[in-house]
């Protein structure tokens, strides 16, 4: 590659820094707002830096109505739904991925059918799921969201893990099989431990997809289950707009995503394209 002159280097660095400021500004603004008082966020010209960084908005947000524990309930429900979805899809998905990768089960058609279920528009699935869950009395339960999210996460988990198994040479497992191991042992004791980083990255992605999910949470649950993503718009729509409290909830809600993008950058390309592009 051509060497850049110092001037070129400076110009590209400046452009990148400006772009970075623009891309991070909304996030930083929300973070700062989460510490502002009402007088500070409803003022013009806008106050950029709050006077003090007291956690009062965070404490208030946790105890917002309904039931005086809005944010706390949201945190609990988001955690339950995202964790359960991740566990279920990882358990079922890792087995299927292993099978598709090692035995070429169902050939390419099965793999691509599984992938295509992910492309389903959620709004098209929401109505029939709503009616079916109503019959089964699952509306407004954690199960409704866990099931709905699992459908969309399972294809992702299977494709991601299939990619990791494909990259792994089967020699170790073959050796284990010759030594008298069953396929189950070869899977649990040999293959899975060898793709640990891939497993962790996939699980984190699956967690974040469920954590960020909004439409199903809006349509399939109401009072007893309220994830963070439905609490945010329900507060925005209220009579008095509690910028500070919503910003506090929003800041808590983006923590898992930031952790993933910082810790697992080398898997991001794969994760965001479902293995279509290997970074």
């Amino acid at each position, binding site marked *: *590659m*051509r060497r850049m002159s110092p001037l070129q280097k400076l110009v590209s660095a400046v452009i*990148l820094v400006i*772009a*970075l400021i623009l*891309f991070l*500004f*909304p*996030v930083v*603004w*929300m973070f700062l707002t989460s510490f502002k008082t009402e007088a500070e*966020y409803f*003022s*013009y010209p*806008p106050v*950029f830096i709050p006077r003090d960084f007291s956690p009062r908005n965070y404490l208030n947000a946790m105890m917002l109505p309904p039931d005086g524990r809005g944010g706390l309930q949201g945190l609990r429900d988001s955690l339950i739904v995202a964790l359960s979805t991740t566990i279920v899809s990882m358990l*079922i998905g890792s*087995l*299927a991925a*292993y*099978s*598709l990768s090692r035995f070429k089960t169902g050939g390419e058609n*099965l793999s*691509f059918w599984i*992938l*295509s*279920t992910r*492309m389903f*528009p*959620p*709004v*098209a*699935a*929401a*109505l*029939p799921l709503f009616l*079916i869950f109503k019959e089964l009395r699952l509306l407004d339960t954690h199960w409704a969201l866990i099931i709905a999210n*699992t*459908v969309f996460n*399972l294809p992702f988990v299977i494709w991601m893990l299939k990619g990791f198994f494909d990259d792994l040479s089967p020699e170790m497992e073959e050796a284990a099989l010759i030594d008298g191991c069953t*396929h189950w042992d070869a899977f649990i004791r040999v293959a899975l431990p060898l793709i640990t980083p891939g497993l962790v990255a996939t699980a984190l992605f699956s967690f*974040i997809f469920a*954590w*960020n999910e*909004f439409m199903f949470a809006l349509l399939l649950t109401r009072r007893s289950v309220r994830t963070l*993503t439905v609490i*945010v*718009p329900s507060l*925005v729509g209220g009579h008095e707009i509690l910028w500070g409290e919503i910003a506090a909830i*929003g800041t808590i809600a*983006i923590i898992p*995503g930031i952790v*993933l*993008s910082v810790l697992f*950058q080398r898997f991001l*390309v794969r994760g*965001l*394209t479902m293995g279509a*592009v290997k*970074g």
Partner: protein
Amino acid sequence: MKHLERQFESLVRTIRKRRTAYFFAAPAIITLLAITIFPLLYEVRLVFMSWELTTSATPEFVGLQNLIKVLFQDSRFWSSMRVTAVLIVLGVSIQLGIGTGLALLLNRMGRWRTPLVSLFLIPVMIAPVVAGFQFRMIYHDQFGPLNYVIELITGGRWRGFAWIADPNVALFAILMTDVWQWTPFLMLIVLAGLQSIPLELHEAAEVDGASPWQSFWRITFPLLLPVIIIGILIRAMDAFKLFDIVYLVTGGGPGNVTETISFYTYLQGFKFFSLGYTAAMAFIQLIIITLIARFFLSFQKRQRGEI
């Protein structure tokens, strides 16, 4: 006899292997079948029904009436399709343009690249609902920082823009939110593509006297194209389902100038409770997304064939 025995043994082994294979895959296949096929059949049945939850509770068979009404008599459906198309075409083009630019710059950043990419990717990992809320604050006509910055730059001549209440700019406000959130995604994909191009190719071109411009269009671009196409298709499929940001930032308004097809379907189903009609619209979206997805899958199959 020995020969036959050996053949029998290998047959048993094959069967056992097949059995293990399906035993491993069964839970996933059953789950996916149960939760995709049932709703799909349910929906297809609904397409031919009139079922208004607001008036009568008994569904009634109406044949193709729902589909005909959606396609030929519902101008709001076509308006929402147009809004969606604008967001896909303009949104993805802008994202690709800026994303490619940033990727080209980042590609030369050496050891700074990794931390920079992590920071750039934060918007992608955020819940679209939270992104929508952030832009609600930024676009606020009285207290928003955007209007403040514009006022500063124009020396007070331009002020107090109603970004989300003005029908002329509301769609632009949605578009910019989507661009903000997804430009880093295309940047990341293009960057991954750039890094997979061997350096020797550029060196060879340089030795042969190619200008940087020629080297980009003759080497970089053709090698990047497959990756870019995959990125565009993924984004197009996602943008087709755009809902969260619209719900948060404008609620489809003012009027219905920012109503996407997903949002209109949601209104019909969960605000107006026209179940048959909603199913008909959902069905049409399924056909469209299937077409894009087919293109994506066949492209990916071809890519794999080449490797």
